[in-house]
């Protein structure tokens, strides 16, 4: 996170992408040269259901301003049912985070297929803007972890 008087706030966005659809979708938006902000950093996971809520909490604790989780469309999960777990699990987690003061707009689940490069880029642009509007995450950030 950097806040600068003359520069706009640059949120740090962590994106978890499942290997089979969304990571490939992200690659496709690269191949098609569709821009999205450098704020977004992608972590590859085998399936969206591999994302433990702990990873998301850890990201917020370490100063991420937004976390997005991308997987295959419902019904299309490479492992048949993984994204259904994701959907239910993240609904719960996000409402708990909301309760803790991590606004809904800082967290998101999006289904992006391997063919949806344009959707991936559009989603990342939108999401970054939404988080930028919210400003830095101060609720869960552990100041002891902040880089000097």
């Amino acid at each position, binding site marked *: 996170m950097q806040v600068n008087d003359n520069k706009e706030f640059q949120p*740090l966005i*962590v994106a978890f992408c499942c290997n*089979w*659809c969304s*990571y*490939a979708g*992200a*690659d496709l*938006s*690269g*191949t098609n*040269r*569709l*821009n*999205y902000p*450098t704020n977004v*950093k*992608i*972590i*590859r*996971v*085998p*399936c969206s*259901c*591999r*994302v*433990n*809520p*702990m*990873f998301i909490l*850890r*990201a917020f604790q*370490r*100063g*991420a301003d937004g976390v997005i989780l991308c997987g*295959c469309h419902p*019904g*299309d*999960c*490479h*492992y*048949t*049912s*993984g994204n259904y*777990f994701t959907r239910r*699990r993240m609904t719960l987690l996000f409402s708990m985070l909301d309760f803790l003061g991590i606004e809904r707009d800082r967290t998101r689940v999006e289904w992006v*297929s*391997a*063919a*949806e490069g344009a959707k991936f*880029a559009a989603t990342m642009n939108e999401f970054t803007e939404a988080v930028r509007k919210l400003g830095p995450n101060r609720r869960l950030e552990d100041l002891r*972890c902040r*880089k000097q």
Partner: protein
Amino acid sequence: MQRIGVFVCHCGTNIAATVDVKTVAEALGHEPGVVISQDYQYMCSESGQNLVKNAIKEHNLTGVVVCSCSPRMHENTFRKAAAAAGLNSYMVEIANIREQCSWIHKDIATATEKAIILGKAAVAKVHLNAPLTAGESPVAKRALVIGGGIAGIQTALDIAEAGFDVDIVEKNPTIGGKMAQIDKTFPTLDCAACILTPKMVEASQNEHITIHSFSEVTDVKGFVGNFTVTIKKKARFVDETKCTGCGLCTEKCPMKKVPNEFNMGLDNRSAIYIPFAQAVPKVATIDPNYCMMMKTGKCGVCSKVCSAGAIDYKQQDKFIEQKYGAIVVATGFNPINLDKYDEFAYNQCPDVVTSLELERLMNAAGPNGGTLLRPSDKTHPHKIVFVQCVGSRCDDSKGKPYCSKICCMYTAKHAMLIREKYPDTEVYVFYIDVRTPGKNFDEFYRRAVEQYNVHYIKGMVGKVTPRSDGKIDVQASDLLANEQLHIDADMVVLAAAIEPDKTARPLATMLTTQMDTNDFFTEAHPKLRPVESATAGIFLSGACQGPKDIPETVAQASAAAAKAIGLLVKNSITCNPCVAHSNELMCNGCSSCEKVCPYGAITYIDKEFRMPDRTTAVRRVANVNPAVCQGCGACTVACPSGAMDLNGFSNSQIMAEVDAICK
């Protein structure tokens, strides 16, 4: 502490133009554990790989990070290189600084900063990598082909040729697909039946090929080399083994008012039917929706006339289960439904037909024995208007965004055939663009224009209105002359867009393969792996992957067969070692993981533990079968004790990546 080597690739200018690779290499060189950090023009080239190999040997590296293109591109390349230098291939991690950095960002400073962060995350991960060894699993030496169009037939023939057993599952009573309905084929104008039916017969006679017609796949389990598939053989109320295909029943059946789907509903068939004379298998099928015996219990004519005693009104659906090493999808396409296109009066006027209906109208085995007559009054049409791109290249929700690819050519074919046979018939073609990129295709189209005087008009058809005098008013614009036209047509032919078969989507779900937004199957790589799906062991053949004409379909069908054969010749395949495992000391045997595993890979074993007081106790703990686990990681998150973890994507590895990115 690991000894890590970092290798930053320029990818020519693909990366180097927007990411300052020297700075990245320099910055990553200061990360803990990194003993060497280098950049190079093309890391994937032979000399690039040698650079990696030499560094591994020279610096005794225990881990490698390559900052380059997507791991989906070259992870394997670098894993192999590492293995060749004596390093376990799973000690290699890729930082994707091309697709996910240099190609999408323009500002060098921020792109370089991001590349460094992605590199750091990979370094942090590799610190926690452990050498993995892949197990082996056997390959069932049998292939399944789903769909019996020209694509499926060609794939099956090629696989059988290599000596492997192959089953074709076709949902219709006969194989052949759309090609069996086509009259002549572009660009050579040879007759479709003459080139297709010998192949159908060859497939039915080949000792390695089993055809399950009138059948569907209802369940797929397992993984590459080891699929277990359930096939539903739908009841056709005729014993396939007894029916000789004589056709007497179809003649005697009193119920003759059933729309004939093979002729696109342009004429009728009987309730017991054989789709067409060259059907394979040539076996009758009873349509229970129309059969009077089934509906009222009175009739039974077919069973009386059948000398083979093949009729069985009580036949039930039958399910068979079979193991396969490889699966090829060849489910083809269908023209879209034109109900939404009111402007073309398709539903109001019988003389407005689709191109596929025209194929039947012109076919010698079609409803009029090959004489082109208007469906409404069976008169000879003197003026025919063709409308191109109906539902293709459409931005609205009615149509499809893509080009259906085959319509320009088959319309040129239709126009030419009509002008050849009926020189007194005038033919107009309204087009947006004529697209003819294919061997001898443009020559073919030009022949239609120059030799056969087909009127090609660039412009759109606005409205088609049937008139009371039997003519059809076609209102259109001529974009080049910039004028509005009215044509009194006798027939209108719509080149309807094509779309994947409706059963393809549920099939993709069963096969866990990906589809694009239009429901065409997605290939593993658009350029380099065009006939494989991203799911190992599942291959794509024909128009189910995208619009294709016959030559392209056959080429892809043979390519898919070659890939399937490449798999079937192996006795065993190496499994993915990135599987789950539970820490027996932490596992409390709660069964949470077992419930979420989609593959049933988790069982429980009783294990003896030594207790602090030196006694032993037996506890139930989770045990993952590494040959069955596919590595999704569902169990790792479900586990309340943190006992379950995933090789290659462990909790600590992903946490380390998060930390590196957020630092």
